[in-house]
């Protein structure tokens, strides 16, 4: 483990700003995914939430640790997103923050542990199982890939890249599934044939994590 590629508070801030950018860019895509099997608000909700996160980062004093950044994000999402995604992502970032403690930097194992904590928080809150066609279907493979990478000695950016790639694959794999949790479950078999919006937004969030991490060490 080399501290040269560990992730610091500055990275956490960049990750969140990049997430806000990607979510804004994909706002309509996420709305449209939710329109087909939900209620057409997922992109709007996340855009509102991460716009508020950026405003909070701009106006607050710079947080001192990565955990402090993620806690601020958690509280902001919780109070601005609403819907199912607000409490779920809120819990995810809160648990992720807790897993980091007051460490100044995030090493590869801590990165993997952070992702697992987020994922476990979502499962604890929403009680979805893998295959229920929710964001859990992106977070779970992301967690597993991140842990495998960390165990194999990958750098922190590599761990996040593995997580992001697995999340994207997991989101794609929700397409044929029949939803059993959340609003899409009311559609029964008609929910099959469309990707889950929360799984797709999860992939965007983890992709932003990986890209900002890689850039930091490019």
């Amino acid at each position, binding site marked *: 483990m080399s501290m040269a590629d560990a992730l610091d508070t500055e990275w956490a801030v960049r990750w969140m700003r990049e997430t806000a950018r990607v979510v804004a860019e994909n706002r309509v895509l996420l*709305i449209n995914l939710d*329109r*087909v*099997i*939900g*209620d*057409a*608000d997922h992109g*709007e*909700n996340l855009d*509102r939430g991460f716009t508020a996160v950026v405003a909070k980062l701009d106006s607050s004093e710079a947080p001192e640790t990565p955990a402090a950044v993620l806690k601020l994000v958690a509280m902001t999402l*919780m*109070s*601005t*997103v*609403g*819907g*199912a*995604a*607000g*409490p*779920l992502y809120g819990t995810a970032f809160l648990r992720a923050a807790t897993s980091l403690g007051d460490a100044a930097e995030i090493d590869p194992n801590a990165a993997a542990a952070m992702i697992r904590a987020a994922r476990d928080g979502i499962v604890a*809150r*929403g009680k979805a199982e893998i295959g229920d066609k929710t964001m859990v279907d992106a977070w779970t493979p992301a967690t597993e890939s991140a842990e495998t990478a960390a165990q194999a000695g990958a750098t922190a950016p590599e761990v996040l890249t593995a997580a992001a790639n697995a999340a994207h694959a997991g989101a794609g794999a929700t397409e044929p599934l*029949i939803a*059993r*949790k*959340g*609003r899409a*479950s*009311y*559609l*029964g078999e*008609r929910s099959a044939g469309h990707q889950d919006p929360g799984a797709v937004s999860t992939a965007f969030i983890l992709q932003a994590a990986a890209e900002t991490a890689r850039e930091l060490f490019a």
Partner: protein
Amino acid sequence: MKKLINDPRAVVNESVEGFGIAHADLVTVHPDPLFITRKDAPVQGKVGLVSGGGSGHEPLHAGFVGRGMLDAAVPGAVFTSPTPDQIIPATTAVNGGAGVLHIVKNYTGDVLNFETAAEMAEAEGVAVRSVLVNDDVAVEDSLYTAGRRGVGGTVFVERIAGAAAERGDDLDGVTAVAQRVVDSVRSMGVALAACTVPHAGVPSFDLAEDEIEIGIGIHGEPGRHRIAMEDADGITQRLLDPIVADLSLTSGDRTIVMVNGMGGTPASELYIMFRKVAQLLDGLSVTIERSLVGNYITALEMQGASLTILRVDQEMLELWDSPVHTAALRWGA
């Protein structure tokens, strides 16, 4: 889709602001975080009733704030559950010392946000109970879903639990009455044409000129299945049958019936449906003791309707009849 709005993101704030001006005698609007309370809140010694959910279902919930019904309403963004930071101050604002009941429609988002808020409010020393409204019989197989949705039955829970609170029942008592209503109320809806969420700008789903969506929810989400267009009597029968079956309505039962417009349906069509409901229930020797026909829980400008039936006993009926004074439901006052 044209709408009488300004900025799509300001729809809820501006509309609640207008609501507050129009009904300044009844309610107070708290702008940030946004919630609406009864003008005279907190009523000392009375159990406070808080409900909320995504906006776009007006008059639900703000239209039901006032004497004999809700103490506070918490509006989220359009079709999006409100956040705990709205629900918590609404809860504390209406706590008159006797505790607060949260009336929550059974959607993942509503459940999670109210759950968090209840925890936090309890930590601040407010006794909080919750009831989950889940009256939509369209969701057939509750093992493989997030459970039944809460729809029109919410109006009945808010009214009757509100009356119990006004009567002076304690928190356990009001909760028990609310739960009794939840257990006795069922609904089913139909859409003829979709609504358009302001920030989305395109209809939530497409229906052909000869198709209707049976089992529609109130969030512009698609229903359970599509069928070819039918006449009003046929559609009414399709909504009524599963309700009658689920409630096991039988000869001699007494009910309150609501035929509810989804926002874009003329009153005349709702009365045509009500006529058929009355005929069919009459055929079953089931009595309609009271009724509501109109827009009570809508989905923006969706074209369609829902049917809600509550089986009542004498106590529920008396609570129903007690004075209520809100923007959208008023009698005896």
